[in-house]
């Protein structure tokens, strides 16, 4: 395949090269990769994804290594270093996380909607495995920092991480991101968080709380699945993004449980571990699982946990968050 059909993008500590004949396929993968817009110091670890269009469709595997909504991942039967991912669209990809080389075959089709959706899952797998191989653990959480304190913000997708991040930015906090972070332990055993994405996904209705975001409905929708729009926080709140921090707190966000605008409670250490472990994917591989468990458990042991319940009116009055800030200081 000609390398003129190649493109590349840095995603955190990885330098990802994409090779695909189809402009649509290559464009879709690049769109997904370009979400990662935080520049990391060199050197970066090389990763290569080559995509071919084929006339046959692969069956879904068992998903014994990892089972996702549209992707099942298994160890290769012929080489245990290799992973084989199968997708509901009939696509299949094989790759070696150690070498960073991945090859995918996608079914040739006029209706490629689901194939393109599955490419997002493939990119997620390739990046996650690459980051792990580079020594980092992906964490599905936001993070804010101020005066030497850094809080991980944990909630399900749509659970309020971004709104809380914006509300805290408006009160002088900085952020590493609202959703995707990398974690490792430094040589001295302290945890290190790094930013991957300095773009927020904000729903247009948040303008009622944060008027400076402007008319978000005029921005293009970026996904079939959500009304949210992409916003660059530096464009609105200059000087608010950070690239690294040492986490000191974990905030477990819930909605409308207490009936109060804000309710704050200290968490037991077991609850901190449980919440934190639920923010990362642990594949069914002993060596990788042990490493992830070790880093997450050690980090959790150093975090102060805060259970935060937010009511619908929490952002209506700025002082509602004072209770949380007191707990974080």
């Amino acid at each position: 395949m000609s390398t003129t059909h190649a493109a590349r993008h840095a995603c955190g500590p990885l330098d990802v090269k994409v090779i695909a004949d189809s402009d649509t396929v290559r464009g879709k993968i690049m769109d997904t990769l370009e979400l990662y817009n935080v520049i990391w110091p060199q050197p970066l670890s090389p990763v290569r994804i080559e995509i071919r269009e084929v006339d046959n469709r692969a069956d879904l595997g068992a998903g014994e290594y990892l089972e996702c909504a549209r992707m099942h991942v298994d160890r290769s039967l012929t080489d245990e270093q290799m992973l084989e991912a199968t997708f509901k669209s009939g696509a299949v990809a094989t790759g070696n996380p150690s070498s960073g080389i991945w090859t995918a075959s996608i079914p040739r089709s006029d209706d490629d909607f689901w194939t393109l959706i599955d490419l997002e899952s493939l990119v997620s797998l390739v990046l996650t495995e690459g980051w792990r191989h580079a020594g980092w653990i992906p964490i599905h959480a936001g993070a804010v920092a101020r005066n030497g304190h850094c809080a991980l913000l944990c909630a399900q997708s749509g659970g309020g991480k971004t709104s809380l991040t914006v509300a805290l930015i408006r009160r002088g906090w900085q952020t590493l991101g609202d959703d995707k972070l990398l974690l490792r332990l430094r040589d001295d055993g302290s945890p290190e968080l790094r930013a991957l994405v300095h773009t927020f996904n904000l729903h247009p209705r948040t303008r009622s709380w944060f008027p400076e975001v402007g008319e978000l409905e005029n921005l293009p929708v970026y996904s079939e699945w959500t009304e949210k729009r992409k916003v660059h926080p530096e464009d609105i709140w200059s000087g608010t993004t950070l690239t690294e921090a040492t986490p000191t707190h974990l905030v477990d966000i819930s909605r409308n449980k207490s009936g109060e605008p804000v309710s704050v409670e200290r968490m037991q250490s077991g609850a901190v571990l449980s919440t934190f472990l639920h923010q990362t994917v642990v594949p069914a591989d002993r060596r990788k699982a042990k490493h992830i468990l070790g880093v997450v458990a050690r980090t959790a042991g150093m975090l102060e946990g805060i259970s935060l319940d937010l009511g619908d009116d929490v952002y209506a009055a700025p002082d509602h968050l004072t209770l949380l800030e007191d707990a974080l200081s």
Partner: protein
Amino acid sequence: MSTQASTEILALRPDVVVTTLEREAVLLDLETKYFYSVNHPGWAITQLFESGATRIEARDRALAWGAGNGDLGPITEFIERLVTERLVTRAEERLPGEEVRFEGTWSAPTLQKHREPLQRVMVSAFDPTLPLAE
């Protein structure tokens, strides 16, 4: 408990991974996705099953580490919880292992099962949350 049960070799299942912290350990069952915290004495006993041990051997070692006869009830209960949770299962033979040591004051071993297991099916390789229906 039958004599046979007391003398059968028990070993940690291969798909249970462990990480140790200062005074405790965390066990993750990769099959069920449940995870557990064990305290310092609990971890000392659990370590015996990394290479394989009988119930009697585990109790004898605990006595040698400072447990009293009055502690045997909680120790037996702890081992049976490991068995009930299928964290340890019957093994045919022992594996080579390092000498397990316990330092400190003995207290009842505890095994805390965390309520929410990790997701079996998730959104993506990055996002561990439960996927929405398509």
